[in-house]
């Protein structure tokens, strides 16, 4: 264990980089070049530092580690309180892993306002990392909401033709949820008298209030995940966002909702979570099947992958609320896997988009003839998305289904159909883009991956295989934290007789 504030370092290093970029002066070309190198260096160093979190992480412990705490607004008992446990550790790493890749992916494609773009990304990284580390409601809220701003700008400024519509849709959707969450946070403060998350995790809220708090949190998290039917902002946002924006959006931002479900809904509001579990199941199963079918009908590559994200995140929410060891670890693992795989798939789309400037599936075909390296990379990620054993996608989905089957066979079975449909739309996409004859004139001269692109995709391929073949490295640090969470939750479930009866009856799935 180190004594220096490593979490603050990981959190605020990117911000420091952003500030430094502000000071770059000179000719526009030089500013752009320096800003890019600065951003790349900063994010890489952040990644290196964050790896120490993993190395120094005490696997056996379920408590928060690397804790930093200092008073901030003593009048309200708000403190700057940071720490990670086995659940948030890898989400932090995921953020720091994807950011340098995003910077590199934008290297040649972003030509306007490069400096501002890089600043936005570094600020975004600070906010994401801070959000996963925050152990104080207030700090959490600041980071959680703050993420919206750079993302809104990235879509709205550097996006495609319909970027304004998409940016506002994204912003309003998430904002409405957030406002309700703010109400919930204020209520919690008045109810429990503290904003300290570890304390709140041990606080027993009155079940009646829990219902309302849960719904308020749900409004925010369900939009972020996104769960059906709050998902329609996602395809639009993805389609209009620049490639790197999509990567972060799919890779990290969607996980914020799922993380919130674990930390707040499950952790603080267990009675309400039990009560609403059938509701979550229903929405998630619909998400899996519905969006898979919708993905089958897409004509735009990015939209297809966006819809597949909704389906894959459906597995995550099912896994969280099934609340067995396997399903919960599977859900967290699926978050990591999806972060890597969907990010990679968006990068793959970006590769051809940079060359041809179209995302229409029918615009392509036969690319394998000209782009063998690209074909291999795209194939690996397609298979990971399909959940082939040996890739990262399998482990998460399998654990979720396995864990869920123990408590609810119907949900597990219905969700498993998503595996069949997932294979259908992904292979169909791959076939239409990569296979067949090379017909179009401008595709005849299309170039294969350049070195920069190889450097972006290669680490992702390594991650996909690593997560798939030796997932234990990632599962081991989760065990203790997940076990603690599950035990606490199951204890409540077991002891819960009267409160359950008190809550009104909603249409519930069979159990």
């Amino acid at each position: 264990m180190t004594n220096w504030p490593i979490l603050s370092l990981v959190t605020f290093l990117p911000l420091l980089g952003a500030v430094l970029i502000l000071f770059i002066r000179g000719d526009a070309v030089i500013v752009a070049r320096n800003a890019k190198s600065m951003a790349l260096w900063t994010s890489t160093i952040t990644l290196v530092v964050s790896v120490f979190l993993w190395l120094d992480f005490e696997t056996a412990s379920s408590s928060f580690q690397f804790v930093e705490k200092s008073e901030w607004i003593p009048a309200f008992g708000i403190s700057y309180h940071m720490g990670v446990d086995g659940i948030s550790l890898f989400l932090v790493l995921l953020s720091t892993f994807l950011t340098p890749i995003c910077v590199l992916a934008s290297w040649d494609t972003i030509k306007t306002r490069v400096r501002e773009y890089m600043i936005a990304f570094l600020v975004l990284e600070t906010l994401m990392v801070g959000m996963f580390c925050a152990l104080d409601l207030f700090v959490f809220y600041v980071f959680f909401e703050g993420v919206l701003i750079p993302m809104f700008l990235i879509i709205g400024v550097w996006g495609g033709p319909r970027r304004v519509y998409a940016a506002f849709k994204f912003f309003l959707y998430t904002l409405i949820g957030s406002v309700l969450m703010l109400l919930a946070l204020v209520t919690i403060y008045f109810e429990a008298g503290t904003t300290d998350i570890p304390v709140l995790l041990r606080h027993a809220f009155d079940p009646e209030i829990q219902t309302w708090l849960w719904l308020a949190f749900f409004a925010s998290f369900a939009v972020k995940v996104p769960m059906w039917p709050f998902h329609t902002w996602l395809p639009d946002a993805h389609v209009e966002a620049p490639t790197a924006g999509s990567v972060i959006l799919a890779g990290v931002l969607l996980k914020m909702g799922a993380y919130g479900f674990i930390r707040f809904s499950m952790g603080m509001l267990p009675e309400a979570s039990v009560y609403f579990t059938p509701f979550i199941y229903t929405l998630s199963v619909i998400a899996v099947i519905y969006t898979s079918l919708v993905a089958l009908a897409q004509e735009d590559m990015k939209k297809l992958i966006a819809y597949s994200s909704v389906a894959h995140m459906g597995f995550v929410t099912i896994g969280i609320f099934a609340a067995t060891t396997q399903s919960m670890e599977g859900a967290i693992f699926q978050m990591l896997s999806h972060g890597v795989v969907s990010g990679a798939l968006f990068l793959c789309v970006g590769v051809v988009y940079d060359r041809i400037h179209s995302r229409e599936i029918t615009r392509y075909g036969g690319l394998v003839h000209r782009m063998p390296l690209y074909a291999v990379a795209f194939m690996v990620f397609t298979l990971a998305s399909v959940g082939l054993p040996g890739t990262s996608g399998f482990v998460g989905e399998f654990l979720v289904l396995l864990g869920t089957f123990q408590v609810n066979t119907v949900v597990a079975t219905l969700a498993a159909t998503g595996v069949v449909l997932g294979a259908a739309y992904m292979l169909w996409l791959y076939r239409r883009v990569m296979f067949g004859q090379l017909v179009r004139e401008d595709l005849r001269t299309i170039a294969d991956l350049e070195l920069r692109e190889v450097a972006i995709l290669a680490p992702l391929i390594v991650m996909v295989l690593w997560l798939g073949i030796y997932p234990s490295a990632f599962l081991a640090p989760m065990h203790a934290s997940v076990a603690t969470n599950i035990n606490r939750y199951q204890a409540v479930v077991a002891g819960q007789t009267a409160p359950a009866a008190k809550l009104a009856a909603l249409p519930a799935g069979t159990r």
Partner: protein
Amino acid sequence: MYTAAVLLPLLGAAIAGLMIAHSRDREAQVVTCGAVGIAAIFSIVILLQVAGDGTPRTIELFTWIDSGELNISWALKFDTLSAVMVFVVTVCATMIHIYSIGYMSHDPSIPRFMAFLNLFTFFMLALVTAENFVQMFFGWEGVGLSSYLLIGFWYDRNKANAASIKAFLVNRIGDFGFVLGIMGVFLLFGTLSFDPVFDAAPAMADRSMKFFGWEFHALTLICLLLFIGAMGKSAQIGLHTWLPDAMEGPTPVSALIHAATMVTAGVFMVARLSPLFEYAPAALTVVVIIGATTAIFAASVGLVQNDIKRVIAYSTCSQLGYMFFAAGVSAYGAAIFHLMTHAFFKALLFLGSGSVIHAMSGEQDMRKMGGLWHRLPWTYALMWIGSLALAGIPFFAGYYSKDIILEAAWGAHSAAGQYAFWLGILAAFMTAFYSWRLLFMTFHGAPRADHHTMEHVHESPPVMLVPLGVLATGAVVAGAVGYYFFVGEGMAVFWGASLKVLEGHNALEAAHHVPTGVALLPTVVAAAGIGLAYVMYIMRPEWPGLVADRLRGLYLFLLNKWYFDELYDRVFVFPAHVIGRGLWKSGDGDLIDGVGPDGIAAATVQLAQRASRLQTGYIYHYAFVMLGGVVAIVTWYLIVRLG
């Protein structure tokens, strides 16, 4: 050595994969053939060791998935069953690798092809040496992937691409059942490793399990779910539609994956899980019925197909049916025995047909062949051997294995057994008929190909013929050699603990004591089938056309493969696309966005416009509204406060 036997092909695939970019054809061929060849030599040693001293060996590599009570390792399990499978897989694979050097010599992407073949071999070995359900599933999906890649090997052909996706998806449907089965096992046993599950199975024989709100006999449910996976992989009726289409791939692929090894994985699975299936008699009955039905269905379709590879594909499907109903009557030894002999003679037939196609410049339609026998004497002779083995003519390999299966079906003394026996006999007749129809149409009669093609007809080079010779040797002797160990007196010692048969399920024992008539019947009908084919295609070549005209409906029904594809297109594929589009446009577009964000936005705009319309700027409008307001307030005051 045990580990190397499994991992060498993976290494070969990786090295050959790196050669793709540099087009080092020869090196890739050497590496891949070498890898699988060494694995084959190892496999022989392994088989002798494991079956010799009867002690299974398990090699743990490292932890794979570890979560709660679930603990899965990468591990290699070698008992007699897996050793036999490793032997069959590596030997067939070696022959087919070598054959591919000749067959694919004109192809521009040889390293890729060889790498895929090696990759497939690795996955297949991982499947058969699995020590737990999940690793089996890993191999299971892995061979599916290789099959997908190899069927679609010629990726500029649309038909090949469609076939490869179809293969993957139909298999995925099967795998869906497989996964559910695995989850059921975990729910019931709390572990997914084979040995603890098998040990605990007898104690679980009376348990029931809730699934979709109904109570089921737990093991029956689990076995049936797992069997859905087997049906997909082994192309049993209902999930068979991908196999004939898979013939779009290069012929060595058809021989290796779609005849000798991968498609038999389902049979292997049932045999491997015999300690579970034995306690699920209802599931076994289903296996028998599905197997027997597939045997007759596929054989009947094979009667009328004109594509040489499709005939053999349906024949494979049908033979897999035999293996399944053998397993279903608890004659697992017979199933694996037939699996082995079939691997030899069916690979031989496929490669032989590949030799014909190679000679005919890619032509696969038998109606455009004929009269080839003196041009391709070796191929012709080898195809005869393969067909004799397939038809079960005495003393060829198929004779031993198919007869014992039919006798075991008879010996099961059950209704399902009788069903399987009689359908099996009928299918045996058809098998002989279509095999000789194939031989006669291809090699005899007047040449029907155009002059140009006929000029180019040439016998295959030794690199293709020698592997055929090796396989032919297997097709001749494998039956006689293996009989004693697989199904004869030595079987109890040979199989050891790797197969489990309960007391009272010993159909294989009873198979040795069936009436003489029953024992002779398969051979008699096979001879009759050959005779009929001779009459119809040599003596009276006009008859087939007449029969087809007379029985038009039946002919079309068979030619169109019982209309399975058409049915599935209508019921599943087309609706999925329509529903998907509908949900997208109406669900997401009109309903969610319409009512949600766009609707609210539009409503806000409208409201604002209304509000702005109020501000007209005319004094008298404002004055009038004020007056109205005053009147309303006064009225309200008078009525409520004073009244």
